[in-house]
């Protein structure tokens, strides 16, 4: 029996409305992307596309297009467009910011 591979992502701001109570989203990913992550070759674009697709199917009332404006980060760095996704956990999805 095959097991679904999922990204375990921290989310903030507007994305909190679709997260669990601790602020996480579990996003299933397709096997091809899973294989790329395992080999350290996943892309930020693929990660964002996985989140967008998940929101579209599981939260159709949520504006999934806003994922395009989100940054992907870990606890120390905002990833650039060419950064590699090499693990399923430890990433955060950051909507546009407005502190102060």
């Amino acid at each position, binding site marked *: 029996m095959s097991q679904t591979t999922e990204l375990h992502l921290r989310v903030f701001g507007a994305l909190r409305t679709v997260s669990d109570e601790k602020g996480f989203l579990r996003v299933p990913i397709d096997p091809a992307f899973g294989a790329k992550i395992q080999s350290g070759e996943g892309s930020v674009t693929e990660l964002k596309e996985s989140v967008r697709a998940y929101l579209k199917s599981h939260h159709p009332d949520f504006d999934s297009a806003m994922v395009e404006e989100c940054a992907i*980060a870990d606890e120390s760095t905002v990833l650039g467009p060419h950064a590699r996704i090499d693990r399923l956990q430890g990433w955060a999805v950051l909507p546009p910011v407005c*502190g102060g």
Partner: protein
Amino acid sequence: MNRIEVEISEREIRLSEIDWEALQRPDCGASDVFFGMVRNRNHGREVLGVSYDAFEPLARRELHKISEEALRSELPNAHGTVFIRHRTGNLKVGEVSVVIAVFTPHRAEAFQVCRKVIEELKKRAPIWKKETYRDGESEWLQGHALCSSHGGGV
């Protein structure tokens, strides 16, 4: 040497509890302090309160970086202090959401550094706010998209 202190916390900011004397330094003759507070109106809607959310580890790093950049650009041959405290959690109208205190040798740099820090904080710190309105609705506010050049990205 520059001194930078950043705190992001759910704890209420009481101005009387900040140890201003401990922030002063003998080489600094000027200080500028900025307070941000929750306003009762935004875009014509009556605001009852604001809820702040933050990615704390990254926000602390980014605020350190912003402060260091501002001090270096305005004080290439001297040093100063930046103190930042930012709230998270639920705030009512009138509560202080952010304090930025800057200490520099002269007043012009203090104003400049303080302005730079608050402007960059709004664009670069991973902090979000949700307003709650009198009519019972609430809304996460639109903001600035982060890019990797802000966070020393890879």
